[in-house]
């Protein structure tokens, strides 16, 4: 691989920076609402990384599920917390004990990941041509991985039914 940067490399580093900075902000911000909104950048960045890895389907699904669904859900959940009245210091992670614990964990995992990245024998292959992944993914899901796929869907169904039962109001208690 040539050492010189190409345009694609610049985009990659930009996306990686976006992901990391937004993720760091989400962890460190004292304002929990801003923290949640900064996750938007992280999710988009991860989608961009998927797209750069030629995983177009996964990238698009990442945006659809994480931005369109999970992020909105998180925002709703955050807006329902009681801390929201003082949004400026609503993130308890800013407390010293919690913060130091978090920093410790972060450092530990950083060391672990870095040592893995440095020690692992990376196999270098030439970048393949871009190939659509939707059809192979679909075939894999419905042929090789059919059992786990179906099991997952059963689990999800159970979760949905459980949520409905918890959320359902008892008609006898209150209208």
């Amino acid at each position: 691989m040539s050492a010189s940067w190409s345009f694609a490399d610049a985009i990659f580093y930009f996306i990686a920076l976006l992901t990391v900075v937004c993720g760091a902000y989400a962890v460190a911000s004292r304002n929990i609402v801003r923290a949640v909104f900064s996750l938007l950048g992280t999710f988009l960045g991860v989608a961009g990384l998927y797209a750069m890895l030629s995983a177009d389907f996964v990238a698009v699904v990442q945006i659809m599920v994480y931005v369109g669904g999970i992020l909105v859900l998180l925002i709703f959940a955050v807006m329902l917390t009681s801390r929201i009245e003082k949004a400026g210091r609503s993130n308890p992670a800013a407390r010293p004990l919690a913060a130091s614990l978090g920093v410790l964990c972060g450092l530990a995992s950083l060391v672990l990941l870095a040592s893995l990245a440095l020690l692992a024998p990376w196999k270098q292959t030439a970048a393949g041509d871009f190939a659509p992944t939707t059809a192979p993914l679909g075939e894999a899901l419905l042929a090789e991985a059919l059992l786990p796929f179906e099991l997952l869907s059963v689990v999800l169904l159970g979760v949905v039914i459980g949520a409905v039962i918890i959320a359902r109001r008892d008609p006898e208690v209150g209208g």
Partner: protein
Amino acid sequence: MDALYELITGSDLGFWWKQLLLAVLIGAVGVIVFSVALVYAALMTYLERRVSGRVQSRVGPNRVGPLGLLQWLADGAKMILKEDVIPAAADRPLFRLAPYPVVIGVFAAFASVPFGEWLIAADLNVGLLYLLAITSLVVVGILMAGWASNNKWSLFGGIRSAAQIVSYEVPTALAILVVVLMAGSLSTQDIIREQGGWPWDWYVFRQPFAFAAFFLYFTAALAEGNRTPFDLPEAESELVAGYNTEYSGMRFGGFYLGEFGNVYLMCAIATLVFFGGWQIPGVSPAEHHGSWLWQIVGFGLFFVKAWAASFVVVWLRWTLPRLRVDQLMSLCYRYLVPLSFVCLLGTAVLMMLVPAGSLFDSLLRFGTFGFGLLVAAIFFWRVLWHIRHVGDRIDLKILARGVRGRFDPAIQHRAYGAFRKQQKQPEESR
């Protein structure tokens, strides 16, 4: 686009020159797509105001440019000139950021919308999914605006909008999946190529489930675009102006254009998924591919179809009253979602049982087409019936005489004479 890309990568320029040219190419395409999308969104506002005028028996904007066609330029310039107010209690960074996800979400989607066979910025392999995914950025922007304004109406509007968009994404996607199942592709261009130019080759008339899926899609997309009868997020009788209550100047312009861009987007998706896109009746894809003439005609056809759908959207807005929040949610979860699942399953079963090209397949296709014609005929018959029963106020002759009738005083006199006489009489007798 592809040709230019190959020209650049295949040339014997230096590495850096190639990179630079590619960057410029991508940037240029982005700018072009953005400008086109901007103009389309702006024209949408013009259509909205003119059609609302006609619906309310007014004229609508007609002072700027011929027939008021440049009204959007005046509005746009005005918005740029206006002061950009940020409330003192607002969350400033979020308040400033909020319009961007909305604008990006809507206008990035235009990259994958075909305007003609050659006129598409990026024919993605996962095009339809991309369209659905990237527009979900809008929700985040709207929530951000609602929160950051620090205004209860904004927050209500933002949360209503988010709940609505997230809910209605499900039936929208499921209804589109019906066609994806039939086409076997997520690429917008492939889906159009699978259809034909003639109406009975369109996916909407292929089989009854697709016909139903079209109506499900249209209803759900109306709700996703916050359009009446589902415009609860900006219901001015309840929420001042919803999530953009505190926005002024060009930041408001971002929301405004995003909303109207979204309307065109949903109509373009309906056109390409259900109405055959740029396919020209009687012209084979091979003929179409190489000819400039057919490209232009195809562009025109797509334009006409998409704007006809937009016209219906605007028409609905000025005809129907607004729903309540609980009605909105129950419509989605109790009717649209189960019905779209039925459509999806039914399509799958039909595809298993009925081989393409068989007699039964043709029967289904032409039967659905005939049913569609029947529905349209009954609908227009009802419209005419209503127009006739309004009385003398609208004379169908004047519609029939077309454009000339609107400017020729003699024809106007003949058509409206009776009405004028009726109006004068009570005044004289008083």
